[in-house]
């Protein structure tokens, strides 16, 4: 365990940023977003960033390949961006768990090389959540926001930050920074305080009982889906702020100098998502809304040894313009029991 005074954080980040690309949670027009570290960036570690960290591995838009089309001939050019080593600082336990959810999708055979390369180049410095929000419910999914994991764990304890390496990669990273030893007791006190807050969170009693693999028949035809989805706008905001939503689209763009094939985030909440010339298997928002939650709470766990595809970060609770969210869904579907 290593420790620094809080006022030394700036010079620590500068030292990390001097060697590698570094991203930190920072103020951006009222939001907290992961931002490239530079002089003058207003680092803000007060709460979980508004947008999840999935963008580092599964970016909103990325190139797959380029085509040169000339008469009847086609050439394929692999023009993916080359990744450098990078550090993400201040990732919370929920987002760290989301990497595991995404890994199960992108690193299962056939491995997605774009995703894997970014994972391999990353080093994650996590931060224990000293002030979880009232919309937080990571505990529902067995996540401990006082033990966030990653390569290096950080704790904000009183007037100092304490760091602990979790992986070998994290060990080597901390060794480079020549920090002073200490902070063990402060971390224990910090954890105890977080656990006290956790117990008082309004959603602390939410459980996953009734959900999980094999529950399709119990939940799919529940009449409550109609009422739950009635006011859904199908805007896709929930999927875009969600750290585990991983559906994507593949599209071609004529650059004027060839065809760029790219992939971008997509949403099962959109009508286009399943629409074919042959028909539409999910004709109304009810089916599309149900798909999103059934996938997170039943289908994904069925395929991934019970792991849920929700990490309780609460972003959808804060961002949905219609105040629809997974907590409401879980509570409503369970009322029948």
């Amino acid at each position, binding site marked *: 365990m290593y420790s620094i005074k809080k006022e030394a954080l700036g010079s620590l980040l500068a030292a990390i940023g001097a060697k590698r690309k570094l991203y930190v949670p920072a103020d951006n027009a009222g939001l907290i977003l992961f931002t490239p570290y530079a002089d003058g960036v207003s680092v803000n570690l007060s709460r979980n960033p508004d947008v999840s960290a999935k963008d580092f591995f599964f970016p909103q838009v990325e190139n*797959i*390949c380029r*085509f040169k*089309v000339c008469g*009847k*001939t*086609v*050439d*394929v050019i*692999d023009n993916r961006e080359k990744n450098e080593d990078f550090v993400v600082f201040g990732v919370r336990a929920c987002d760290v768990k989301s990497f595991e959810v995404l890994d199960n*999708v*992108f690193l*299962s055979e*056939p491995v*997605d*090389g*774009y995703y894997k390369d970014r994972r391999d180049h990353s080093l994650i410095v996590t931060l224990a959540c000293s002030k979880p929000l009232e919309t937080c419910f990571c505990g529902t999914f067995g996540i401990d926001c006082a033990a966030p994991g990653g390569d290096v764990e950080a704790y904000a304890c009183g007037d100092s930050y304490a760091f602990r390496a979790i992986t070998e990669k994290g060990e080597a990273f901390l060794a480079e920074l020549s920090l002073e030893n200490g902070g063990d007791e402060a971390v224990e006190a910090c954890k105890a305080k977080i656990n006290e807050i956790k117990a008082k969170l309004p959603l602390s009693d939410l459980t996953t009982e009734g959900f999980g*693999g094999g529950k*399709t028949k119990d939940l*799919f035809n529940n009449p409550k889906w109609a009422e739950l989805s009635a006011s859904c706008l199908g805007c896709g905001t929930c999927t875009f702020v969600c750290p585990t939503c*991983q*559906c*994507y*689209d*593949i599209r*071609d763009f*004529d650059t004027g100098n060839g*065809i760029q*094939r790219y*992939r971008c985030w*997509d949403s*099962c909440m959109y009508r286009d*998502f*399943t*629409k*074919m*010339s*042959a*028909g539409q*298997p*999910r004709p109304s928002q009810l*089916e599309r809304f149900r*798909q999103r939650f*059934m*996938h997170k709470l*039943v*289908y994904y766990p*069925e*395929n991934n040894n019970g792991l849920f595809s929700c990490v309780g970060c609460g972003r959808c609770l804060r961002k949905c313009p219609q105040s629809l969210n997974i907590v409401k869904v879980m509570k409503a579907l369970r009322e029948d029991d």
Partner: protein
Amino acid sequence: MEALIPQVVVCTDVRRDTPDVKTFRILTPDGKKPFVNIPGQCAMLSIPGVGEAMFSITSSPTNKEYMEFSIKKCGCLTEWLHMIEPGQQLTIRGPYGNGFPVDTALKGKDLLFIAGGIGLAPLRSVINYCRDNRADYGTIDIIYGSRSKDDLVDYKEIIDEWMNTPGVNVHLTIDREQEVWDGHVGFVPNYVKELNPDIKKTVLMCGPPIMIKFTLAGLKELGFEDTQIYTTMELRMKCGIGKCGRCNIGAKYVCKDGPVFRFDQLDELPNEY
């Protein structure tokens, strides 16, 4: 090799089968089959700049020279495909999906193929595979229907080859009377009931959803079980490798867990197809 990056292939021949179906012969630029597949598997074909979509591989794996795709003109990419001429390069990636269990569950069985319209495309691969490995299968019955005689895909192969293969019985039907037609007239589901097939047969069925629905009901009336009936599904797909989320039904992904399912397996899934 990155799964999403396709390889270049050449369309060496385009055959017009019906007013809205063409069959495309596909080879690598150096004249080889792009990859090895099993009957019922699919591949992603693309015209860069237009789009990429999943098509069932129509030719049999026993054809070692080239790969064929029978494609109906019904959307943006297929309209473009119908405009290409021999020599045009395209891209392909695959093969994707599970295919029909030709070397396990279907081996030694009497097979009943039921197809409607372009639904013959994926079954043609299996039919020709079984014809080329004739000793491995029992009798083969094929019930194939379309709107008119002109809409029967690759009528020539059916007449010249299938009908002349020992142990293969072909039953064709069209929806409405036609002057040039002296065969059966009527919809596939009714024709199946009329023919009253032996309920020991294993059924492989593909066609429009309405045909599937009524034929399935008819087969069950005759005494067939869900576990004897296979079909192949079509849903919108982008990645083909179970990641993009589009073809997800229940805990299954049609692109990798399908597209071939038995009806007892489909019964376990939510009805979203």
